[in-house]
């Protein structure tokens, strides 16, 4: 095992490293006391990737009781070598933000507020809108009489935070619906 800060704390926390680390001349008493009180003590480590910029720094999420309790840079990713910038270092506050949306919301025409709805209700209502628009506006031919099979009045603006697999299904769905107004953040 490489001697890194993370391993050092883990080892110290287990107590098993007392002898070899002690032999290095390090007084482990304070570290041991510190590690025992840490919220990552006993946590499961899961590797994820910072959701900003395409350096894609990896970080380790420490999961305890179904919650992420800490995040830190992953030293094994050879590009970042464990470093994180201000945004990467703020992962925990982003994940556990009190401001996050946790339920589908609906705003009726001319209304001045959002209301919470169930997923079932939302999917039904949204699918109805999509189908009605597609049914009324679907064009099989363009002005020149060429076959075009498209709906011009529905657009899709996606994002480059989506995973590759998400992009793959979104692309298939968009073309399947007949969309041509289909773009994402690489354009802007």
């Amino acid at each position, binding site marked *: 095992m490489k001697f890194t800060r993370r391993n050092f704390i883990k080892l110290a926390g287990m107590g098993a490293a007392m002898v070899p680390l002690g032999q290095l001349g390090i007084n482990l008493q304070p570290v041991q006391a510190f590690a025992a009180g840490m919220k990552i003590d006993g946590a499961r480590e899961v590797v994820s990737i910072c959701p900003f910029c395409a350096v894609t720094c990896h970080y380790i999420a420490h999961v305890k009781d179904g919650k992420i309790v800490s995040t830190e840079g992953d030293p094994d990713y050879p590009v970042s070598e464990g470093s994180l910038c201000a945004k990467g270092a703020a992962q925990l506050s*982003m994940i556990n933000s009190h401001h996050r949306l946790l339920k589908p919301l609906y705003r009726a025409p001319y209304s001045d507020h959002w209301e919470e709805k169930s997923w079932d209700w939302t999917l039904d209502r949204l699918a109805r809108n999509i189908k009605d628009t597609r049914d009324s506006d679907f064009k099989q031919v363009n002005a020149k009489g060429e076959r075009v099979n498209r709906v011009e009045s529905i657009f899709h603006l996606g994002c480059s935070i989506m995973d590759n697999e998400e992009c793959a299904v979104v692309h298939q769905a968009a073309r399947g619906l007949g969309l041509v107004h289909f773009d994402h953040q690489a354009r802007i």
Partner: protein
Amino acid sequence: MTNHWIDLKNSDCVFIMGSNAAEHHPISFKWILRAKDNGAKIMHVDPKFSRTSARSDFHVPLRSGTDLAFLGGLIKYIIENKKYFAEYVTEYTNSAFIVSDGFQFKDGMFSGYNGEKRTYDKSTWSFKTDAKGVPLRDKTLADDRCVFQLMKKHYSRYNVKDVSRITGVSKENLLKVWETFAETGKKDKAGAICYALGWTQHTVGVQNIRASALIQLLLGNIGVAGGGIEALRGEPNVQGSTDHCILWHIIPGYLPVPRAQWNTLEDYNKACTPVSHDPQSANWWQHKPAYMASLLKGWYGDKGTAENGFGYEWLPKADGDGDYSYLYIFDRMYNSQMKGGFIWGTNPCQSVPNSNKVRKAMDNLDWACFAEVHHTESTDFWHRPGVDPATVKTECFLLPSANRAEKEGSITNSGRWQLWHYQATKPQGESLALGDMCVKITNAVRHLYRKEGGTYPEPLLNLDFPAYYDPEKIAQKCNGWFTKDTMVKGKLYKKGQQVPSFTALKDDGSTVSLNWLYAGGYTEEELGKKYNKSKRRDLSQTPEQAAIGLYPNYSWCWPVNRRILYNRASVDRNGQPWNPDKAVIRWDGAKWIGDVPDGGWAPLASGNGKYPFIMHKEGHGQLFGPGRCEGPFPEHYEPVETPVKKHPFSGQLSNPCAVILDGEMDKLAEPGDKRFPIVLTTYSMTEHWCGGGETRNSPPLLEAEPQLYVEMSPELAEEKGIKNGEPVVVENVRGRVEAVAMVTIRMRPFNIQGKTVHEVGMPFCFGWTTKGCGDSTNRLTPSVGDPNTTIPEYKACLVNVRKAKTLKELDV
């Protein structure tokens, strides 16, 4: 990136222009600093002095929007001082090709322009060929009509005096950068060019990057370790999402979108597949029909048959001259031609130029479906400042999106590494992964069509679409599989078994692959043992790989795990590296060692080799690039909003093909407009991300950067009577924005054609949903774009600045 992040350490000179790498790709910057530790020169050319500048050997300020003048001067310098890598230029670029007689360039314009349509007929931008159709070449580069001579003549106008007068860069600074970078033209030296949105977000964005390609090809810097053109890609998966082409004009794997004039798959293949008559050209895109058929089989499964073009006939077709990109989407929305749409993980009311128009356009929608982590200026457009919700008809759905740590899947970094991330916890509350939402919504619509029927449901109902979202299964399908038992190089692959690489893909419907570039990333060499290579975490290397920081066993990289693109240009005709100390590949007499070569053919000298630039029809790096909208050689044009009325290189002031909208809200200042004499540029910052929709909701980040500011020089501040920290109004023909004045020597006034031109800079991450922090800077930027990409010109427009008397947007 042609190379990858770690490879920057191998460079002898890193030339950063149109990027503030230290602040916007902070963790990448250490690789640049490692190059510096090894003696590399680091240069930063940018309007603003930033932390990138502070860590560079020198910073050179230039006026926003004049990059092409600067780069044109560098090209002239390299050619006239014979700093180019002659062997590379002659053998590997199209410098020796003879250009067609009809091609001309006069006073800023190339042959074939149609002023009414603002487009070129490009038929004269072509090469002379022999009877077999192989381009004629003069390897002495002496022919008046060869690319090299035409290029030399073209850039002869970009003399240091004129470049200095238009860019505002002193002659001394120009020569310092040009001389330093030109030194990398030596055989054993490598220079990297790093750019980001500072180059793309101009009406000449594509030509800025084209110019860097000319420079790197002249200096022999493409394909080598420490070289390359490094697009420092912004969003976390902007590489992967672009590879999957969630863009109107392409379909997965950079295949052209079907057009109305191509009625059948056969028409499509005929129009889109390049044909080369040169036996030494690999002409890789000749395989396009195989990639297209495999994609269609992925989309339509068993319903896609040879008779219906594997489902091609169901696909939506774009008009031959249609454009369906961002600027047009919002223009059509403004003109009530849009009824509804999806806005997922993006905040256009904040981040699309001319946001006053964008925000107003949204009011015309009947319905809108947002997927977000937080409320943003877009999700809540209907109660934005100054708008009564009772007047906005739009029915809005706001779907809660999971954080990345709450889902698994792969993303692709700027160096094209496909990286798997794991699910740490279930999505919080009722939030869902975007892929999950997409599958649920699409299936809900399909269900309605099955139940009720409707208009032409075949394209939707015939999809081979998942019943539920499973990223592993989709990743397998991106790689693809055989639809029948198939022999590949003597090995039998069973029906349903994963394809080993894109070389196994076929045009006859016998293979499925949702993205040919990703074929090879999720293989099954032993039946039943599928292998997701994006999960690899093996750091082992050969000594050759270790010497240049290559990690071929860590994750997987497209194409076919090749870490440095065009790497056969890093060796001579005998397959021996130009720089043996930093070899990317080497022919050992029987095989290539090092990186995965750009095709495994024997070296060119064997007579059985192929030219290294395999993605071009002729196999050569394109100094003369006939594919772009506004010309085969990059030419300086001013931004659409420019402080000058003329420039020294031609009578053509701005890009003759630029996308310019002309609606009632698409106002533009006149060139040299006295009302708005100051150049505005916009940028990001370390603590906030793009429009700020996510990061403003993170307290530590908002505390670090709480409020909108405008950076200005002490000279401008004095002229305007503004003190550091005072609130000011920045305004132009399109809008008015409040900001705090940051008076700083990081911004310098420019001497342009003998007069002082000021430039100011503003971030664009602050919006009204975060109280008191300010509102969209993009209310000032114009709806104009590059003709090749329609990427808007965020980086240069005209404004004026004054002290604020009353404040609405800022709590100060």
